[in-house]
């Protein structure tokens, strides 16, 4: 049954086989995608026609590698900028949220906490359309009553940022809260007793203690934002983020450039993820 009990060889072997199967299932699509990024063929498919780096570096009429592909490069840059702002915003607000729900007392705290969690159970598509509608309403309101045409309210860069921020903040709040729960509040009292004011206490003591969780929350926020599709779909303007851009290409047929981008994404996110996981494991 478990490792401390005697198990029949069939049980152990069967279980191992199942787990290996499961991991193959997990990694097969990623592995295949990566390998085909180096195939010297016009299509991301077998047979293998030899190793090439063309899909990264080539700049010929029939082959444009990712590093010369302006459209994809632009969308990567858009995604990076979106992710940057989402990370900053959601880390700030999420940390405030953690402090609010862990350390402060106020009326309707339970209700507000419930509200804070709801973005996790609202489908991303719905979040996208409701923010789209609301910003449109605001835009119409500002135009009709004040005569202002505020670009901010139309689909576009900032609306994407806000849309992703709306649910990523919940994740950051939960991550930071989890660590704040373990914080010994007598440390704050000790600092107060040694002459620090409330803000010095938070700055020197509590935030120092929280910093691993805040960094890990920020990393997760960045990755979540970078790969978000469902919410972004409805809010995106002329500047397409990478997932949207890839979606349009994948839908209309594919070239190994997509594999090359995927390969880069897989390598980068895995690195960030492994670093993040190792660090948070060390913290335990």
């Amino acid at each position, binding site marked *: 049954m478990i490792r401390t009990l005697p198990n029949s060889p069939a049980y152990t072997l069967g279980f191992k086989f199942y787990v290996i199967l499961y991991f193959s299932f997990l990694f097969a699509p*990623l592995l295949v995608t990566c390998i085909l990024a180096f195939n010297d063929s016009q299509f991301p498919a077998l047979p293998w026609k030899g190793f090439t780096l063309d899909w990264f570096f080539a700049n010929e009429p029939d082959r444009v590698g990712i590093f010369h592909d302006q459209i994809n490069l632009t969308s990567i840059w858009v995604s990076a900028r979106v992710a940057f702002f989402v990370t900053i915003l959601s880390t700030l607000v999420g940390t405030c949220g953690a402090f609010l729900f862990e350390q402060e007392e106020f009326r309707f705290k339970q209700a507000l906490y419930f509200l804070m969690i709801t973005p996790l159970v609202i489908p991303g598509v719905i979040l996208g359309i409701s923010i789209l509608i609301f910003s449109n309403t605001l835009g119409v309101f500002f135009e009709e009553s004040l005569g202002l045409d505020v670009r901010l309210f139309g689909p576009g860069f900032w609306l994407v940022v806000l849309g992703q921020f709306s649910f990523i903040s919940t994740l950051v709040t939960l991550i930071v809260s989890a660590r704040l729960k373990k914080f010994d509040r007598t440390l704050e009292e000790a600092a107060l007793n040694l002459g620090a004011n409330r803000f010095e206490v938070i700055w020197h003591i509590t935030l120092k203690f929280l910093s691993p969780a805040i960094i890990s929350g920020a990393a997760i926020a960045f990755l979540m934002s970078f790969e978000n599709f469902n919410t972004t779909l409805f809010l995106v303007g002329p500047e397409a983020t990478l997932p949207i851009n890839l979606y349009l290409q994948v839908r209309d047929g594919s070239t190994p450039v997509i594999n090359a981008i995927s390969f880069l994404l897989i390598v980068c996110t895995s690195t960030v993820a492994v670093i993040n996981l190792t660090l948070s494991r060390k913290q335990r």
Partner: protein
Amino acid sequence: MRLPRNHPIPWTLVCFLTPVILWLFLLIVLPHIDLLLMSLRREDATGATSWSIANYLLFFKEPIYWLTFVRTAIYSIIVTFLTFVIALPVAFYITKVAAFRFQGFLTMLLLLPFWVSELVRVYGWMILLRESGIVNHFLLRFGILERPVEMLYNDATMVMGLVYTSMLFMVIPLISVLENLDDSLIEAAYDLGGTMWSIVFRIIIPHAVPGIVAGSIVVFMLTLGNYLTPNLLGGKNSLWFTEQIYNQFIASFNWNQGSAFGFLLLVLSSLVVWAGLKLSGQKLSRVMK
């Protein structure tokens, strides 16, 4: 114990509360109220709008709409269940069977694919399964098939893709509840003559209920609201409800109708989450940790 409040205004409370209130009200509460209001309005031929429940009536009148809705709900439940059945042994293996030194490594391995964009993962399945894909290539080469078969754009592939996409959100809560299950409980049950099945159903699953509920809620919600996977793997036949919403918003530019659909989806998702919590006697704030 609480810190004293000597100031008439609790500054820290104001500092923390303001951004959170702004966030939740401007981006969650008001947009969803607006969604509801929008769904209750109708534009006539002249462009004037009026209050109406016509958008909802249309949903029930047109079988294509409500059938898609029901289909999406049922498939989401199937996906949630399949995810659970597949994930439970894996979570159990990692927490209870695998040697301790592999535990951390296996967990990390488990998490890795999910950091990668959903789009990349779905794309991977597409190049594996399509007519000119890798699987067909090997099947042809080994003589199992004579002509390539299109494995994309059917329900089975779509369900598989959805299971794959949401797997993580089931495995992680299961691992964390099973980690808290004391090994000696299983040992005791075994010692008392329990069979494997009785141990699974009487000890492990009851203990794992909070994790199962948390995982199921998230998986169900993500599946229900997924657009990418059904669209790319299910193709034209996928008939996923989010595509109806997308069509209304982007293709037909009928925001009122789209809002009604969106609101119905939101109601369905909330209902199922609520029912799940009620049936298992859990609290949302406890489950979402």
